[in-house]
């Protein structure tokens, strides 16, 4: 690998990306394919309006769909009803909206946004009023600053660095994955007071260390599942953020979703990389459905520009484990996928 570095630097980035994506191929084999269909024209966007990069999607208990997408002049949070009809925009002009990364709905139907442009996590009431904020937007008084390079400064309890996702345990404790420039998971109490963190500002490969924790969810037992993207794995942590195990055979850990209810399923996306580099469509793009214990039940999906194929799945909603709603970066679209029931059983995640 190393000997390719110099020519890589000297030539175009696309040429270098080919060996990189080879790591992204899932090593698991023999996983049955789950047939899926994509609901045509699922979201009805009003005339004259456009979804941008649809990186974040979630549903509430009534089936309403929230899309937090990268639009101009800032990211926007849109609410649709269960049939995909547009209802309203929430947070128009809100301070914490700049560059979206995640939206999740908690068991009380509060809407939480994670914005990696403002470094803010915001809890909205079901009606769209701000109830709590975590993190702080870098103050504009600093003027226009250059994009920071070099080592990250020490991670702080209450300041994020491009956070990526949010989740809650059954007690209402809050977990934040943070993020692109910190490399940690942070736990807060229900009132937003710091309790613990795993990882730090530094990227790492060990258990309990992260390199771009890009997605995160908490299961019904309070365990924390982390899509550890640049480490090409998932990690499972206990409620106190001590590592339990890693999952290394499902490709890149891009994003994760855990269905609610007594029998939970986990969906892992080996999303195709941004830029659609040559060869990537052949080895990435699929979503795995597993049990909490790691048993892999099946997979579905592949890259492509047109439905039902995917263009960089960035987030999944799995409130109904047989109806997965996916938000895609590069097709500015949200798809609803109906999974056909299947009975086959497969290998286990490692």
């Amino acid at each position, binding site marked *: 690998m190393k000997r390719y570095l110099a020519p890589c630097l000297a030539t175009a980035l696309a040429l270098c990306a080919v060996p990189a994506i080879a790591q992204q191929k899932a090593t698991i084999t023999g996983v049955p394919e789950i047939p899926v269909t994509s609901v045509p024209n699922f979201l009805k966007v009003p005339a004259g309006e456009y979804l941008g990069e649809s990186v974040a999607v979630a549903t509430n208990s009534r089936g309403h769909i929230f899309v937090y997408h990268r639009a101009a002049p800032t990211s926007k949070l849109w609410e649709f009803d269960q049939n995909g009809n547009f209802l309203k925009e929430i947070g128009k002009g809100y301070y914490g909206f700049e560059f979206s990364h995640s939206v999740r709905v908690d068991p009380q139907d509060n809407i939480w946004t994670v914005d990696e442009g403002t470094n803010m996590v915001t809890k909205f009431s079901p009606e769209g009023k701000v109830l709590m904020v975590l993190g702080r937007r870098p*103050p504009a008084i600093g003027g*226009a600053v250059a994009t920071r390079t070099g080592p990250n400064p020490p991670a702080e309890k209450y300041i994020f660095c491009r956070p990526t996702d949010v989740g809650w345990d059954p007690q209402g404790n809050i977990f934040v994955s943070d993020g692109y420039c910190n490399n940690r998971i942070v736990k807060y109490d229900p009132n937003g007071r710091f309790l613990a963190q795993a990882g730090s500002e530094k990227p790492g490969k060990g258990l309990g260390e992260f390199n771009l924790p890009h997605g995160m969810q908490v299961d019904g037992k309070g365990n924390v599942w982390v899509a550890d993207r640049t480490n090409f794995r998932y990690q499972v942590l206990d409620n106190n953020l001590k590592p339990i195990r890693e999952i290394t055979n499902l490709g890149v850990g891009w994003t994760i979703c855990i269905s609610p209810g007594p029998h939970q399923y986990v969906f892992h996306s080996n999303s195709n990389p941004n830029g659609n580099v040559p060869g990537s469509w052949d080895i990435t793009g699929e979503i795995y459905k597993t049990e909490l214990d790691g048993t892999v039940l099946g997979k579905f999906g592949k890259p492509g520009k047109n439905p039902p194929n995917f263009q960089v799945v960035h987030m999944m909603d799995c409130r109904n484990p047989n109806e997965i709603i996916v938000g895609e970066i590069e097709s500015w679209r949200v798809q609803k996928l109906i999974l056909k029931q299947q009975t086959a059983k497969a290998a286990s995640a490692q």
Partner: protein
Amino acid sequence: MKRFLPLLLAGAMLVGYPAVAQNAAPDLAFDGDVNFLKTPDNVYLGEVGGVATNSRGDVFVYTRTGHPFVSLGGARAFAHGGSQLYQFDRNGRFVREIGKDAYGFMFANQVRVDPQDNVWVVDQMSNMVIKFDPQGRLAMLLGRKAEAINIPARPAAAAAGGGEGGGGAAGAPGAGRAQDIFDRPTDVAWDAQGNIFVADGQGNARVAKFDKDGKFIKSWGQKGSGQGQFDNVRSIAISAQGDVYVADGNNHRVQVFDNNGTFKSQIANLGNPQAICMTTGANPMLYVSNSNPPNDIDKAGEIYKMKLDGTIVGKFGRAGKAPKEFGTVNAIDCRSENNLLVGEIGNLRVQKVTLR
């Protein structure tokens, strides 16, 4: 007392913003209502720089709503926007926005209402103090917004030492120039004669005095920790007698001056006095917030109620995100002694506090 000073300083470095008085001060019972202001759909408060009431109880909020922009393509880089001024009625119902897209609205730091119900905003980034009449029309301007911005931004320390926004090129660091050019001003107040006093600020380290028509009279202060010196002038209030109370943030104190800037006394060990408010009437009170830093809710955050001589009546609140907790208080309105409005940076809200 003096022999304990090194110990106190050591404690300050360890704990962060300690207010020494806090151990002795009794806790005041209070209620906090975070839903007092009713914002319409798609009106969202950002970081609350200032909150103030007029004589009718109308509430004015000057807030950092975000999304300032810098133009691309042009002879220089021009920056606009980022803050908004909202008016609510005495019951917290939204009334209107004042100064929409105003040229100087960039980084809200304070709003105050004078005895004639004029509304004054202080903007830390445009370096302007803007007076609106009660109808919301422009009435007077102090300072001038820079024509263009520097890209990349110059370090804050360089700006403080002589940036083009103000600076001390002609004198001691932070002393500023003898004119209405500010460097990150933070607050404004008036004496009984209508003279205007500007807290200037987080770049400069001075108080500037103007007559009621806005003509520069004098300024005092420079960067430092001695009497009459400042390190982060955060807030200002003036007594009925015309004494000037200056919250001197990084020096953990409120300094008291006579109307011409002669040092009289100081109230020390106040932690990080970021917002102060003085009541009127026969028995005036001073509220001082020992505001927590924006990156930590596990320290400080309490508000002190004291007499003008610094005698502590009591304290209430702590840093946090729940009701009855405060997130970096930047403003207090105390038109009514036991009914306060508290503006919070960290929680993007105004909390109505009722002392029982």
